[in-house]
């Protein structure tokens, strides 16, 4: 694939993410989503630079705002949307939802609703890959909120100490829920923190997916050789924390400035200016994404909810007895204990 084709491919992927997230918003407004804990990654699409630098067989964990990362690694929008709607057709059969989506086959070891919760799992994956000598890497995606979690630093230390093929990828969207990063960290040169643990670190402009891709490719290359890295993507979270958040903690002026830092628009402008794609090409890509995500939305709404009997499945492995429904336990007591 030549460089131009690859760049166009990254634009296509970013557009698909944007369109998907917009449909997630629609799903909520239609009352078809499972709850309102839906965290949109609009404004953070340049993460495609990191997902594109990964290879088949690499694994990753994400935070609660991970739809874009998953699509970037090949997630099927229909199965994702069905999961977000809590349907049987979803990736996790309606058990996990937006915040707990995973696909073992694509290397997605799980999205996490505990800030920093999935970060140490890539350390363990890194031990697996180091011991097997298989050349795989494992990447933890998280937000700037996790920069205040101790487990991140425990994990960075272990990765550096044991020379693990691991990357810590911080998508810094400036906000942990409603708290801007300058209100949560006394000193927010985060790459310096990573370097202090012995990691290779880079901070890149989150409006420039190609810059993200180049930095991610370099870090992935060294990580495969056992030198773990930290990549920070400097972005802006366009909308509120979750669907019920009206962003009372920031001004309209700040939002306007932030939303002007649009990685999708920047990529589109760059591709057109460089003559890599015509306006007609780009309109075609945008249209294809809209059609695809409209279909994902419609499929999710039409899909059936899981049968109640599935509730007791997968607490333990299939060959072990499932937890007993409460009415089964009670009926055993109530029938045996009944007196004439």
């Amino acid at each position, binding site marked *: 694939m030549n460089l131009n084709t690859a760049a166009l491919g990254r634009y296509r992927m970013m557009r698909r993410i944007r369109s998907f997230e917009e449909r997630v918003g629609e799903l909520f407004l239609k009352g078809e989503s499972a709850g309102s804990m839906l965290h949109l990654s609009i404004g953070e699409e340049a993460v495609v630079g990191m997902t594109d630098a990964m290879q088949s067989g690499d694994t990753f964990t994400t935070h609660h705002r991970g739809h874009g990362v998953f699509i970037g690694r090949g997630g099927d929008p229909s199965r994702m949307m069905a999961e977000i709607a809590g349907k049987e057709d979803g990736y996790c059969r309606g058990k996990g939802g937006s915040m707990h989506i995973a696909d073992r086959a694509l290397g997605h070891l799980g999205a996490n609703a505990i800030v920093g919760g999935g970060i140490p799992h890539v350390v363990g994956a890194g031990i697996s890959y180091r011991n097997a000598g298989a050349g795989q890497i494992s990447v933890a995606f998280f937000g700037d909120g996790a920069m205040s979690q101790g*487990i991140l630093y425990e994990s960075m230390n272990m990765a550096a100490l044991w020379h693990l093929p691991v990357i810590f990828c911080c998508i810094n969207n400036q906000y942990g829920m409603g708290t801007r990063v300058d209100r949560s960290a006394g000193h927010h040169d985060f790459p310096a923190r990573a370097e202090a643990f012995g990691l290779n670190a880079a901070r890149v402009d989150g409006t420039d997916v190609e810059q993200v891709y180049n930095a991610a490719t370099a870090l992935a290359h060294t990580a495969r050789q056992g030198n773990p890295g930290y990549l920070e993507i400097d972005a802006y979270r366009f909308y509120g924390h979750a669907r019920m958040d009206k962003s009372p903690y920031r001004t309209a002026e700040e939002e306007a400035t932030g939303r002007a830092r649009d990685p999708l628009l920047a990529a589109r402008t760059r591709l057109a200016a460089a003559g890599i794609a015509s306006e007609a090409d780009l309109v075609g890509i945008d249209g294809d994404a809209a059609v695809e995500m409209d279909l994902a939305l419609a499929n999710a709404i039409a899909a059936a909810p899981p049968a109640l009997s599935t509730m007791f499945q997968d607490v333990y492995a299939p060959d072990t007895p499932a937890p007993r429904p409460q009415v089964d336990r009670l009926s055993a007591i109530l029938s045996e204990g009944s007196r004439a």
Partner: protein
Amino acid sequence: MTEVTYRDAIRQALLDAMQADPSVILIGEEVGLYGGAYGVTKGLIDLFGHDRVIDAPISEPAIVGAAIGAAMTGLRPVAELMYVDFIGMTMDQLANQAAKSRYMFGGQIGVPMVLRTQGGTGRSAAAQHSQSLEAWVLHTPGLRLVMPATVNDAYHLLRQSLTQPDPVVFIEHKGLYTMKGPLDVAMPDGAWGEPVIRRTGSDLVILSYSRMLHESLAAAERLAQAGVEACVIDLRCLNPMNEAPLVEAVKATGRAMVVTEGVVTGSVASDIAARLSELCFDWLEEPILRLGGEDIPIPVSPALEKASIPSADLIHDTALWLVTRKAPSWAA
């Protein structure tokens, strides 16, 4: 059959498992060069190297988290938590991650790991190094929970834990490490999830596990001198647990007590007593009694520490009341 210590039986189980399965790794604080805070992993780093016996920094949450990630990607890690008292540090990784991955992800991603740890009183280790916190684990669906009382179980339950597809919390007792007993590597005391009757008796049932099993057996011998025969059952696996043999035994005698070292309020004993009360109500001659640790932090003074958990005397006196309604002197 050979006589070995509880500590050596656990070490032998780790060694045999690591030789049989190259995916088994150990990760924890001081498991390598130091040989384990209680000597359980002594010498294993020499046999299996630093890649499989991993000395970790003092980072309990990331030790458990790394074990989870290793388990998700094909290894079978045994993480060691030096004291069960540190489990609070790891509770997110244990209860929110390891326990829930299979379920949240619709059955795609299991976490076949073992968390080895130890608890209990007996060394004047005080309030932060002496607790019995198994009830915290029992309260979390998705986790398995095992607490061996005998040398043979220490070996076999650990080997069996290392065949489970789900996370297992394996809690040893610091007061048992030097206890000697028979080890038959070819013959487990019982199957996974099955309680074992350690002593037969027709007058009452004493249900216990871990070190309190031995206090219960000592009490049963003294009861026999008074003509009272106690059936003593070792629960072994607290989850999964086949309740059927417990129900059968309690129905047969109509009298039962559950003995634990953990503080009695919200304890494993409370839950088992409740379950058996539901299932055996019409067969009971007396309420099912719970004996546990006092509802206090563990004090350091040897005298106070010893008095804070059930003794063979307390078990004996309470059992005698269950059978004879003879009030012990302290109940006057």
